[in-house]
């Protein structure tokens, strides 16, 4: 816990009624000193890796050295991810809201002296608008933030996720209090149905309808009902669920408790992938703190409703994001999917009715309850209501996490918020929906980003990863990448997936070598359809999407490989060669030292030569050259 919570540690015992919770919220808010400086240091995974703990420590030290009066000791608060990961480590000075980016420990003294003592911003640490070159002081004025609508992410970056009091002060658990004091389970289900909320994990199934089916199934077969959080966010390039679990774990927990109340469940599970240790840690802390306060366990807030939750850690298998495999894994076995001719909402975990929703879906629930289904359904577009969190990655200036209303045009998301592709060019394609999604070309930039429009374009929403590619990315290579990924992650149970992905990869490998024929391209499409139709679960069933969409939108690039033996993007190893540009080469010798083949030679301070016959196109020289003298042809 942070200094604040220890200092302000309210001697709070169990909350025995919803009134107790409301009083606690009031008292936390009442104690706040609005004028007290708060220095927020982002501790999301991106900023952590860029050294934000050292920045926080340096700031603490600087405050001590500056001898700022004891009465107004500034508080250093470490929070979850602010989303603007490419600019980390981020520091925000509250209450003024001054936004500093790429802060290093050495900057600490100047920040404290200038901002806190003298009351002026440190110019050089401010964000510089990429288009106008203007320095921007406040985060909310930066284009990356200005066009967002942050409701699911509203607390992330503001609260200390390891401190339940900070969450409660920000309005956490008020929706639960409302549910327990004023709503019947049926009211809750109906509110979620009215809101139009659809699952944020992949297929976009209406959440309220799922909950209603679970209620109906449990009436037919009395016994336990389970609610489960799918935190097995496995799509490469997607990290919104990780950010929510790390940055606002109580939002997920509160949503889950509300869902449990609605469908009559007393036991929940959170399935979190092993690659997210910080998320697991923060969820564990949240669960423990909620239990201590009586927000979990027996007789929650004196309502008579019992519910508890357990964390199940994933063990490294992408397929466990699939519902039946996820259940098998929680049950303690290898995560092989089973056919879903009986839906898991009827027969899920241990064969019992089970509601499985992903992290972001659960985190939407308290918002809908608190602010009303009508408020919610007015955000976004009619059949895709609310907001969606996207991760913008790849060849995009502002790599990070954004939340926007559903239905926003693809190019607004990429150009306005994401700042477009770095360098001169425009983006070439965007992969949405991860390995199960599709690759959309620049020409489809005005496609509204909602469930149905993306599906119509041959892609899907998926969990919300947006991978932006530029002219240096080859679509044949990207299709191969996703197939290799899925081949590695296939459980291997059914033949169309285990052998079909391998077979599709054989076709693509041939194309990447400049082999194959146009008939092969047609046969690959037939095979893709067989894999779609024949596979047991959605992993295999959707695996052909990247192949089919790249063929659909970039057929000429495939044909260039096949007919002209040419990789236009300069990626496919067998179709390119590395050369050294004698104009740019300074003869520093770095490439020659890095070359594992020893095929680069030359005199010091004179342009070097690369022997193409021995070159294995490993790219080491490219990495080592500081003068961009190594060129791909």
């Amino acid at each position, binding site marked *: 816990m942070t200094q604040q919570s220890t200092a302000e540690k309210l001697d709070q015992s169990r909350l025995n009624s919803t009134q107790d919770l409301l009083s606690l919220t009031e008292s936390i808010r009442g104690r706040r000193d609005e004028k007290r400086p708060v220095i927020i240091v982002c501790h999301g995974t991106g900023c952590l890796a860029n050294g934000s703990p050292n920045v926080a420590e340096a700031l603490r030290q600087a405050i001590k050295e500056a001898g700022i009066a004891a009465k107004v000791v500034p508080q250093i608060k470490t929070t979850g991810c602010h989303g603007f990961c490419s600019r980390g480590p981020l520091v925000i000075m509250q209450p003024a809201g001054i936004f500093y980016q790429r802060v290093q420990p050495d900057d600490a003294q100047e920040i404290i002296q200038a901002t806190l003592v003298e009351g002026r911003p440190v110019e050089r640490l401010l964000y510089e608008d990429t288009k106008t070159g203007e320095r921007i002081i406040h985060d909310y004025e930066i284009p990356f933030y200005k066009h967002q609508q942050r409701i699911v992410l509203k607390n992330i970056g503001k609260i200390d996720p390891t401190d339940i009091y900070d969450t409660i002060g920000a309005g956490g658990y008020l929706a639960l209090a409302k549910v327990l004091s004023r709503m019947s389970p049926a009211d809750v289900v109906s509110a979620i149905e009215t809101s139009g909320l659809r699952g944020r994990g992949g297929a976009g199934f209406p959440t309220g309808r799922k909950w209603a089916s679970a209620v109906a199934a449990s009436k037919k077969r009395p016994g336990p009902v389970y609610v489960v959080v799918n935190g097995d966010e496995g799509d490469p390039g997607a*990290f919104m669920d990780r950010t929510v679990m790390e940055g606002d774990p109580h939002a997920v927990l509160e949503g889950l408790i509300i869902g449990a109340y609605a469908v009559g469940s007393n036991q929940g599970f959170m399935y979190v992938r092993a690659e997210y240790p910080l998320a697991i840690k923060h969820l564990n802390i949240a669960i423990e703190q909620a239990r201590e306060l009586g927000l979990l366990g027996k007789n929650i807030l004196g309502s008579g409703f019992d519910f508890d939750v357990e964390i199940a850690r994933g063990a490294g298998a992408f397929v466990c994001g699939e519902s039946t495999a996820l259940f098998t*894994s929680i049950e303690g*076995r290898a995560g092989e999917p089973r056919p879903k001719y009986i839906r898991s909402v009827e027969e899920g975990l241990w064969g019992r009715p089970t509601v499985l929703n992903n992290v972001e879906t659960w985190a939407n629930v308290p918002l809908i309850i608190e602010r009303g289904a009508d408020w919610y359904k007015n955000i976004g577009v009619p059949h895709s209501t609310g907001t969606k969190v996207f991760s913008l990655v790849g060849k995009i200036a502002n790599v990070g996490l954004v939340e926007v209303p559903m239905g926003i045009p693809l190019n607004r998301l990429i150009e306005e918020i994401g700042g477009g592709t770095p360098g001169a060019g425009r983006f070439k394609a965007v992969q949405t929906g991860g390995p199960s999604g599709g690759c959309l070309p620049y020409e489809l930039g005005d496609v509204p980003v909602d469930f149905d429009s993306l599906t119509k374009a041959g892609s899907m929403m998926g969990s919300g990863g947006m991978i932006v590619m530029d002219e240096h990315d080859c679509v044949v290579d990207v299709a191969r990448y996703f197939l290799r990924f899925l081949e590695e992650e296939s459980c291997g149970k059914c033949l169309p997936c285990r052998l079909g992905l391998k077979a599709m990869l054989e076709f693509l490998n041939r194309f990447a070598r400049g082999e194959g024929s146009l008939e092969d391209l047609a046969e690959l499409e037939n095979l893709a359809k067989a894999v779609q139709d024949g596979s047991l679960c959605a992993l295999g069933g959707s695996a052909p999407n990247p192949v089919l969409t790249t063929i659909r939108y970039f057929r000429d690039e495939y044909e260039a490989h096949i007919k002209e033996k040419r990789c236009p993007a300069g990626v496919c190893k067998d179709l390119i060669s590395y050369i050294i540009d004698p104009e740019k080469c300074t003869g520093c010798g770095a490439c020659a030292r890095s070359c594992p083949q020893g095929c680069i030679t030359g005199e010091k301070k004179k342009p070097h030569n690369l022997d193409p016959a021995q070159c294995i196109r490993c790219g080491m020289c490219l990495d080592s050259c500081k003068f961009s003298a190594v060129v791909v042809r």
Partner: protein
Amino acid sequence: MKEQAETIDEILDRYPGEPRYLISLLQDIQAEHGYISREAMTLVCGHTGVPLSRAWAASTFYKSFSVEPRGEHTIKVCLGTACHLKGGTRLAEGLERELGVKSGCTTKDLRFSLDTVNCLGACALAPVVVLDEEYLPNTNSKKVKQSIKRLDAE
């Protein structure tokens, strides 16, 4: 791997003897001992009542388990899409040459295990390599090699 690993019995005591705790137990043993030995697996099966064959299926199915001893240090190369586009695959191939092992394998002297991982969700840092617990953001072959040399000298 921890310096002073808890004994298998101590780990078994953390969970009730029910089949559903098989994976949690294997995870704890993997974390404490670096791999799952036949002896450890047999004890876990005795505790949870799971047949040995089913525990074998689980421990070879999930990527985070190893049934053979692992290296002192683990090098994880992220091959998420963002890392792939920014040269992650090239990094992994370079490390395979440097260490003389394929990814997923351990060097003969048991110093290093080389793994690839399908997205760590740290895409702003692409390409990213994780050495034990340390993230190497926006890295390249040269920087990774230096970090490995530093670790090896320790």
